């Protein structure tokens, strides 16, 4: 019988299906009588809809129906702010906004119908940048929005008319501390909009059978989709069933409700027939983006390099609809001061409406933007103070038990140790001195990011069922997006009940069977849902122990335990199998355990206590070609303070995956808009990291102190490792070339220009090739 499976890199339980092509994703499902839908979209970033000429398309023999705003519920939806229509009503607010939907017998006929649908538009001036949207004469993107002025925006000279949401936190006396600080640094940093590009695009299949709405969807948050659909279509929750099959990557892009309302509207139009809505890659790019942002940091530093005050202003371009933008602004603003001991902090943020596609969740949720700013500024400060960047960080970094914010959970991870370890690994024995001949210059850089992990005020449930043959089923509302939920939950239950891993099966969620969960996001699944899973398994263990006591007449005083696959009390022992087989308790056929875990509510700015802190600490050594500005990553070290690795190989996979995703954002990715038109939705023009961009050497260093609040001391991961990437690379590039880049991405051209500017600033701009060092 088994022993311990926690801490072992067992192969992922969905692995065989995935390497053989048997794994079924939403788009692989086929149902009898299935019909297809395709979306006709706005051609303009802002325009009034004059007429939709639907009749021609409606009359085509293969077309079943054409829906416009009149045929769908008028109610608006949105997880944090209900501002988004199912189909554009009267006016479209971004280029690509769904305006009509064609249902046809085949996908080709639906797409053809949508392409041929004629819509008369009356274009209006569009707002595309944060500055345009905040200017005094900007028209409101949402007429009904933002009537009240926000005083601090007004002091920045900004109108509040397109303010979607603001956030503020403050402690100490920032103005006084800045006034008396020895040094004050003010710097502004920008990041562009990005697409997450999970390889699986948005897909859903919806069926209204006259009494129940079932929707299969590649969604990270089936229960939120269920709630939004129930509200939109005026149904009770128990009449909506959201099924989330295996998901081909999420990264936040599939968090919260996306295409499901359109899918559901189609289902109601053709009762009894499943309708498939499958977006193209270009349409997926128009569905959600990562927020473009601008972050201004004003930092006061004492003579000995201690940060005494920091004032942060973070503006997020949230596009035409809020989606997760309000919460991204909260989290970005909350995290913007950085993981440092600062007595005087003020941080404000605003999600700004514009006429761009909606921006929402993306791995890191507002943190990548602010970490890029504060970790770049740390090196700027270190340089101006002639101090080592690592020394400046060590002097100011928060230690375990200290508070990131006075009314939140104290820090539970070890940042100073991570900084020490990352330096050791960057300078390890096997490091060979790099080639700096010719145009190549080499430099190293470091960065630390920190985010509150797990989300606030979330609830997680789990149910474990032990069957009479000793196999167990785990029911959770979590989704499998590739992170390994199916595998680690099986490990947790196998451990608690001393079962073979093959005898534990975790079910993919549908909202009718699975217990409620708030979603697969915020690196929360293992730590929070996993805690509920362990609780459920322990309930079953207690029931087994009770059964053992009854069956084997264990005296009331004797302690009974389950260990190494056997139950024992004093001299009496029995295997788990035996107890189950003999167990009269199993006459019912099943033991059921339930678990519930919720994070603490609190009267603080986020409305709840942080469940755990998720750090990201990295070092990078880069080589820059000073003639072309191209960058090669020679060595990258990522510290993963995971608390306890339930499956080390899966942890490493999350780490390098997040880091390489961050390298794309740092070095090459940017959604380009011109007058509100997205120019590079397609992968021909939008460059993602390929095998060629893999660093020459990548190291993940796991730190396991057992100090996380999750099962076995685990702490959530998956986002932390993306946080420090851009700043670590930017700092390394600056160390190599003397050129500092403030706005991502750091393409060769941007670096080349920054080198020219740096050289010019030093008065040596006479040579074509910048002189460095």
């Amino acid at each position, binding site marked *: 019988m088994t022993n311990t499976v926690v801490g072992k890199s067992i192969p992922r339980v969905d692995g065989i299906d*995935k390497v053989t092509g048997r794994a079924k994703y939403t788009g692989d499902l*086929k149902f009898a009588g299935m019909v297809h839908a395709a979306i006709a979209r706005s051609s303009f970033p802002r325009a009034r809809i004059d007429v939709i000429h639907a009749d021609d398309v409606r009359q085509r023999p293969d077309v079943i129906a054409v829906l416009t705003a009149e045929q769908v519920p008028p109610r608006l939806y949105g997880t944090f702010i209900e501002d988004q229509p199912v189909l554009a009503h009267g006016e479209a607010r971004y280029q690509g906004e769904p305006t009509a939907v064609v249902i046809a017998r085949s996908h080709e006929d639906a797409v053809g119908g949508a392409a041929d649908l004629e819509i008369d538009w009356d274009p209006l001036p569009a707002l595309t940048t944060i500055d345009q949207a905040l200017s005094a004469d900007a028209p409101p993107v949402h007429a009904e929005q933002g009537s009240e002025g926000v005083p601090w925006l007004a002091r920045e000279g900004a109108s509040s008319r397109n303010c979607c949401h603001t956030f503020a936190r403050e402690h100490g006396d920032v103005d006084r501390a800045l006034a008396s600080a020895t040094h004050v640094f003010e710097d502004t940093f920008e990041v562009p909009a990005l697409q997450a590009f999970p*390889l699986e695009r948005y897909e859903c299949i919806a069926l209204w059978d006259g009494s129940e709405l079932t929707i299969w969807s590649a969604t990270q948050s089936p229960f939120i989709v269920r709630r939004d659909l129930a509200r939109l279509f005026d149904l009770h929750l128990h009449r909506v069933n959201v099924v989330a099959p295996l998901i081909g990557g999420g990264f936040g892009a599939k968090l919260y409700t996306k295409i499901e309302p359109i899918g559901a509207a189609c289902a109601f139009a053709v009762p009894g027939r499943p309708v498939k809505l499958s977006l193209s890659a270009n349409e997926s790019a128009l569905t959600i983006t990562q927020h473009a942002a601008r972050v201004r940091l004003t930092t006061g530093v004492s003579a000995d390099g201690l940060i005494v005050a920091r004032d942060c202003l973070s503006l997020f371009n949230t596009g035409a609809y809020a989606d997760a933008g309000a919460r991204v602004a909260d989290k970005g603003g909350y995290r913007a001061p950085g993981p440092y001991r600062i007595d005087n902090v003020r941080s404000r943020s605003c999600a700004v409406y514009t006429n761009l596609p909606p921006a929402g969740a993306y791995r890191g949720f507002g943190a990548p933007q602010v970490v890029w700013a504060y970790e770049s500024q740390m090196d700027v400060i270190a340089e101006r103070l002639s101090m080592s960047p690592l020394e400046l960080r060590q002097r100011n970094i928060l230690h375990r038990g200290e508070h990131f914010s006075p009314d939140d959970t104290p820090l539970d991870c070890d940042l100073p140790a991570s900084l020490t370890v990352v330096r050791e690994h960057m300078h390890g024995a096997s490091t060979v001195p790099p080639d700096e001949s010719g145009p190549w210059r080499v430099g190293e850089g470091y960065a630390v990011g920190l985010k509150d992990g797990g989300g606030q005020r979330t609830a997680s449930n789990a149910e474990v069922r032990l069957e009479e043959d000793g196999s167990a089923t785990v029911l959770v509302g979590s989704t499998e997006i590739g992170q390994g939920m199916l595998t680690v939950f099986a490990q947790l239950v196998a451990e608690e009940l001393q079962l073979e891993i093959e005898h534990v099966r975790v079910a993919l969620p549908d909202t009718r069977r699975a217990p409620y969960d708030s979603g697969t996001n915020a690196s929360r699944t293992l730590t929070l849902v996993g805690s509920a899973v362990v609780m459920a398994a322990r309930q079953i263990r207690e029931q087994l122990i009770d059964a053992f006591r009854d069956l084997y007449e264990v005296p009331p005083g004797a302690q009974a335990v389950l260990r190494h696959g056997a139950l024992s009390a004093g001299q009496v022992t029995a295997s788990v199998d035996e107890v189950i087989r003999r167990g009269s308790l199993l006459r019912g056929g099943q033991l059921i355990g339930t678990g519930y875990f919720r994070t603490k509510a609190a009267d603080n700015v986020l409305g709840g206590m942080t469940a755990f802190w998720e750090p990201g600490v990295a070092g990078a050594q880069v080589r820059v070609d000073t003639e072309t500005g191209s960058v090669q990553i020679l060595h990258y070290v990522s510290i993963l303070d995971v608390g306890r690795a339930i499956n080390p190989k899966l942890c490493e996979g999350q780490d390098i995956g997040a880091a390489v995703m961050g390298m794309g954002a740092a070095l090459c990715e940017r959604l380009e808009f011109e007058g509100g038109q997205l120019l590079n939705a397609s992968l021909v023009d939008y460059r993602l990291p390929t095998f060629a961009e893999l660093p020459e050497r990548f190291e993940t260093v796991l730190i396991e102190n057992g100090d996380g609040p999750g099962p076995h001391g685990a702490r959530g991961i998956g986002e932390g490792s993306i946080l420090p990437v851009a700043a670590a690379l930017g700092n390394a590039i600056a160390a190599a070339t003397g050129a500092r880049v403030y706005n991502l991405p750091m393409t060769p051209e941007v670096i080349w220009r920054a080198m020219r500017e740096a050289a010019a600033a030093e008065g040596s701009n006479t040579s074509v090739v910048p002189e460095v060092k």
Partner: protein
Amino acid sequence: MNRVSERRRIRCKVNGHDIDREVPVTQLLVDFIREDLNLTGTKRSCDVQVCGVCTVLVDGRPVSACTYLAFEADGAEIQTIEGLASGSELHPIQQAFLDENATQCGYCTPGMILATKSLLEDDAQPNRERIRDYLKGNLCRCTGYQPILSAVVLASERIRHD
């Protein structure tokens, strides 16, 4: 509406099975495989021959099925991910992907494995540079590529030592 309705007969072998069908001349190979043959292991994503998730082998060469017309496969031998394992025994490349955690969400995996098969048939012992160069037409958003690199090396070792 200006739709081409011409159809052509194609005879080909898919995973060793003889196929004889009529297909519209405009049909893409990826749709023929996924919809007509119901072999959904082949995925589609970017539609512009960049991401590689629709990679299948046509006469042993990796091809993006999203930009390849079905009728062009007339007379060809096609291999999809479903044709790789023999019964319940995984192909060494599949086993190596499993052992190295080279699959996360799994969406790139079928194409990545088929591209790897083509690479290892061309070069039984590719070095790191060759692997990186050969597979750069297959994107993965989850793994950061390193585990895939390890899996390719492991598979090449196992195949050579078998």
